[in-house]
């Protein structure tokens, strides 16, 4: 699809798309405590690229994504699967969450767990799947 001739849209997209990507990461990371998570985060990120497709062109969106979207699907599913296998290796049932405590300054500790990695996999899969469909449709 050729770029829409709207200057307003282009200007807006130039600011909104990066913000949407940033917001998607925010949603992904806060998901464990507040509304959000990999699924909605992934959809937001996909929206960012959808806007780029509208405001600029399909090629711009493809170039900025850097990898073919279907690769993101493969990496995403692979990552989620790998976190499950990680649990198997440690002798726990498939997909059991594993946690480590990383001591930060003073008494503050950061708890990191495989569910976050799993959610990153979901995030990537959702972006990849949505954009695969979107780009295919947008292709003229």
């Amino acid at each position: 699809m050729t770029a829409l001739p709207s200057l307003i849209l282009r200007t807006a997209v130039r600011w909104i798309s990066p913000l949407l990507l940033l917001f998607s990461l925010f949603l992904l990371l806060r998901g464990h405590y507040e509304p959000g998570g990999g699924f909605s985060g992934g959809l937001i990120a996909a929206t960012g690229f959808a806007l780029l497709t509208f405001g600029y062109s399909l090629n711009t969106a493809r170039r900025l994504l850097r990898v073919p979207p279907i690769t993101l699907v493969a990496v995403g599913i692979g990552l989620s699967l790998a976190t499950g296998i990680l649990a198997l290796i440690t002798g726990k049932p498939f997909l059991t969450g594993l946690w480590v405590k990383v001591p930060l300054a003073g008494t503050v500790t950061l708890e990191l767990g495989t569910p976050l990695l799993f959610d990153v996999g979901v995030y990537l899969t959702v972006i990849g799947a949505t954009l695969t469909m979107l780009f295919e449709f947008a292709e003229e």
Partner: protein
Amino acid sequence: MGVSLALLGLLAFAAPWLAARLQQRFGYLAALVSGGTFVWFALQLPHVVGGAERLEELPWLPTLGTTLSLRLDGLSLTFALLITGIGALVALYVVGYLENHPRLPRFWTSLLLFETTMLGLVLADDIVLLFVFWELTSVSSFFLIGFADERPRARANAQQALIVTVAGGLALLVGLLLLAQQQGSFRLRELVTMGSLQPPETLITVAFLLILLGAATKSAQFPFHFWLPNAMEAPTPVSAYLHSATMVKAGIYLLARLHPVLGSHPWWQPSLLTLGLLTALTGAALAIPQRDLKRLLAYSTVSALGTLVFLLGLGDAGVKPFALFLIAHALYKGGAFLAAGAIEHVTERRTLDALGGLWRTAPVLAGATGLVVLVAAGLPPTLGFVSKEAILELGVETLSPLLLLPLLLAFVGQTTVAWLLLRPLLARPPESLHLHHAHWFSLLTGPMLLGLIALGGGFALDPLRSLIAAVIASVQGATPPPVKLTLWHGFTVALGTSGFILLSAGLIAAVWPRIAPVGDRLAITEPLAERPRGLGRLAPERGYQSLMSMVLRFADVQTRLLQNGYLRVYVTVIVATAILLIIVSVLRSGLTIPAPLPPLTIVDLLDAVLVLIIIVSSFVTVRATERLVAVAALGALGFSLALLYARYGAPDLALTQVLVDTLTVVLLVFAFYRLPRYAQLSSTPARIRDAVLATAFGVVMGVFALLVHFFRYPERISSYFAEQVYEAAHGRNVVNVILVDFRALDTLGEITVLGLAALGVAALLAVGKGARD
């Protein structure tokens, strides 16, 4: 034993990589490894003959009580020697036969996989393990028959062999499990020492019949023999190895192995004798008129396999000739196939009438072929002679004429085939016969060596005697008296019969040019045609054909019905099924809605407005005459729904709903460019039907939601999750923790589906693009 299996298996899996690098030389490596295992097995001979079995065990599925247990006794040692020895020669042969073939690595993988699994089959002591190897040999046979996969017939015949043997394999599995259940052990050695129950239980009879079915399909017994001549589509070394010397004897092996358990079953003798004789006769009769060298040999293999089953049916008396014939046949038939392949390789011809004069033009090849013929015809002093004398002696002395006569006829047929192999050497050479370049060392070592071993076997009777004794010990389940084996019996009735067979077979071979046209008229010299004529109309293969066409027709009907490609039909079926299932399960569960309904507690203006928007926009969606209107209305519906979610404490759901709706609208807008004009295609009755269905679904889902709402869970899962969410999963957002931790497996499934859907969309649009270009 485990080491030799592992070594061969490793080589099979390394073949794609190694064969691509070593090219032809990989064949020498394969021959070396196979030959090495042969030597190892040969070194075990003194131990096994001395009565010391070799056992190896590895735990495999301990919870199921299955172990990787291997056992080497007389019977498995004989088979192991044949498998590895002939395997080595065949590997050497492939070097010359498939010289510079582009798909050699694939061939090696299948062939070595076969060798590994066949060896595993005869060594396995656990019946589950045995079955696994059994099926794997069928699979590798499938790949090898279909090796020339550009030929439709090779594909079809590979499929046929697979379906026949695997169907039998399924029967075998049930039979073996029944037997193991009834006798209380999965170990062959325990089953064998237990002996059979007297009188046998009905279940044992069923098990016996199923096992017999499995053995009969694998070993090409009548009426399942048809797959074997069709398997000749495989490259000739495969025919020599799998389809005459080893794999087709797996059924025979199993029957021999289970003889101590099932041999005293009252049905054993009658069924094996009948099956064996029928097969031996059918194979012999169909072999004689064949023009194609390989089909000729294939039918005579069928006949020989029948003979082996017959000998097993005779019980203890038949075991000695059985063991002798087993070894002799593997040697000469493997050799005959290899010789026939060499003839084909240098002349590029395979039909008997088109060949001749090779003794002058290719003397070494003719010599190798002649040597094999000596053994196959059973001339003294070869092993072929010794084995045939043993059978005839038993037959003449103990069998009733009713059994003896068909057996002799089968022998005449098999001997005729041996004589016919001389035609390419001695017949008048046809005008245009040219010899092509050949890798003589590789092509002739196999048949030469097999022929020489069979020739020398007649003299080296001492090691043979002890091996035969060990086989008899395994098959009879008891130590036998010393085995008598002599090359020369003096002028006995058996010798006279043998001479008579040789003579009459020679006569038939001499008038063969008159017999072959009869075979043509009866339509038995060609593969079964689409529309069979002559005897082809009676061929058991037609049963297979009609079964397969029935399967295809059924698949066709059910595909048209269920997979017709119309999205509207799929949606209708899915919705209707869902309605039905929900109604049935709700009625069965006995859930009720309390009557009267408690009054609605939270009704404010915003809720009412949202509900109103949802209702109105769903009507607008359905009645819209323009696509953009429909999409916009659908969007309005989705956003209102999302607002409702947000108001009733499901922010995650609301967020996702909004995003999904946004992206759906975006996707639809893109898709507009591709869609045809928005037209009303459904007739009024169809629309009414759809309306009824949609309303029914809505009502059912509504009632269902109410039912669930009023159902009192004895223990609420949500409170458990709420408790555990911070304790166990270190999170506060229950919804997300459920998604990524508690029920992560579901999510993994969902994202896989999502990825597949994306792939599907991409593939469909790519197809559309291709169609437009």
